[in-house]
């Protein structure tokens, strides 16, 4: 095996230009695909942190009898996606408001009557926090006769989730496209290498070399190219990430979440994936070339 590895490294050195082109091609593909992955992972995390804050407020009609409250609470709790239901009485709501208003609390003190309604605060099971389910639950609650209004704020989150899902789909398609493009480029550069070395390969066959003996150094070459391309692509992405994250981190995250680079398991996956691309490109070219 060490002979094959030596041969592969020797071949890479001898065809520096073509090998550099292949590595750059793989690196660019990896860079683009991992940039999408990075964006998706971070936006998903941001969305999750926002989603965790999703709560539905159900305001009750003025004069709803206190005796109806436990029954109502029970009813809401049985609805799909509900995790917890908290009753906030109008007086509790007023106290909360006072706390929030601090200096202006005296304004509230001057009120003759508490204008706030009784309400339920409904928290959802994290697993069912997709936007359609939030909307469905809100509609169910709103259909209760005692409920006058339902508020689940952050409606933009719904739109944003839809856009994100669309973006996810687009990135899967783009990922597949870049994968194919990278394989195609590797296959073509390997074909060029093979073509430039066709005489050498012919001589090897004439002196009794098996196809396996000829192929293995090329496979190793492809795997090395893929690995290098993957590492270069990720390194470039990391540099961009460091430059961007310091700026975005300060302006945007404000402590709600931290922007993270790709986790180690994804990094390993990307490098192994790019090695696979290198190997597959070689495999396809060699299969065609050695048939002749």
């Amino acid at each position, binding site marked *: 095996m060490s002979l094959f590895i030596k041969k592969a490294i020797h071949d890479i050195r001898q065809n520096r230009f073509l090998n550099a082109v292949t590595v750059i091609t793989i690196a660019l593909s990896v860079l683009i695909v991992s940039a999408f992955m990075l964006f998706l992972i971070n936006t998903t995390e941001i969305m999750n942190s926002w989603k965790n804050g999703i709560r539905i407020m159900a305001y009750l009609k003025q004069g709803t009898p206190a005796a109806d409250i436990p029954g109502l609470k029970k009813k809401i709790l049985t609805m799909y996606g509900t995790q917890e239901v908290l009753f906030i009485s109008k007086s509790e709501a007023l106290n909360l408001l006072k706390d929030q208003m601090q200096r202006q609390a005296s304004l509230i003190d001057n009120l003759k009557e508490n204008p706030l309604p009784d309400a339920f605060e409904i928290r959802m099971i994290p697993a069912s926090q997709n936007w359609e389910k939030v909307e469905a639950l809100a509609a169910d609650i709103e259909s209760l006769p005692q409920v006058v209004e339902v508020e689940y704020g952050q409606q933009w989150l719904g739109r944003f989730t839809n856009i994100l899902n669309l973006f996810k789909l687009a990135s899967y398609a783009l990922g597949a496209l870049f994968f194919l493009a990278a394989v195609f480029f590797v296959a073509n550069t390997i074909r060029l290498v093979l073509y430039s070395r066709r005489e050498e390969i012919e001589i090897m066959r004439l002196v*009794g070399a098996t196809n396996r003996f000829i192929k293995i150094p090329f496979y190793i070459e492809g795997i090395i190219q893929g690995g290098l391309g993957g590492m270069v692509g990720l390194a470039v992405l990391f540099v961009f990430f460091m430059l961007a994250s310091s700026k975005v981190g300060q302006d945007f995250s404000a402590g709600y979440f931290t922007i993270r680079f790709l986790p180690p398991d994804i990094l390993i996956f990307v490098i192994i994936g790019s090695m696979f691309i290198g190997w597959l490109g070689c495999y396809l070219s060699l299969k065609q070339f050695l048939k002749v």
Partner: protein
Amino acid sequence: MIEEQEKSAIIRLFHVYRHYGSKNALIDITLDVFKNEFLFISGHSGAGKTTLLKLMYLGESVSDGQIIIDGMNLSRISRNRIPYLRRNFGIVFQDYKLIPTKTVFENVALVLEAAGVKRRQIQKKVRSVLRTVGMEQRQKSLPPSLSGGEQQRVAVARAVVGDPKIILADEPTGSLDSDAADFIFDLLKRFHTRGATVVIATHDRELIKKAGDRVVHLTSGRLETPSNI
């Protein structure tokens, strides 16, 4: 001379034809080459000498007929057995066919590497063969830096390093001056005396006369009656 050799044939051709489209390159060739024989295939350019050698090492396939090499019927050999068949041969080409980016040593070692010989043995064997052909001092040189005669010596070294049963040489002296040609011929003779069967395709009449071995003559793809010179 044949009487002195073992009578068993190592290469047997039965009614072999080779045509490219409508052009017939070889027509009805029947020939036995005996073990440890030194055989010349003579003929003008385009007579079919190179094609005949190619058919022997499966560089090309016959259009019709059969070839048997050391008991192996080439028409029945599977694709993945071809490399093993070729290890029976040492082939010397007129244009040397050395890999220009590999050193003299690496070019010769390639045959043994392909056969899976251990590295230490490769070192020993290649050095010994390079010494025999007088190229030990140039083992680190690249082929383009060598003269034609030197390149052909390396090609002969590569052909014999695997101790092949058969050496096929296609115009081995064709592009060499007479001194270099004599040296190459002497080398081939030396490996013949060590037990190899040697088949040389050449149009060099002087060389054939000097050798005094069996000659078969090809004319327009047809074999004339084998004769001794």
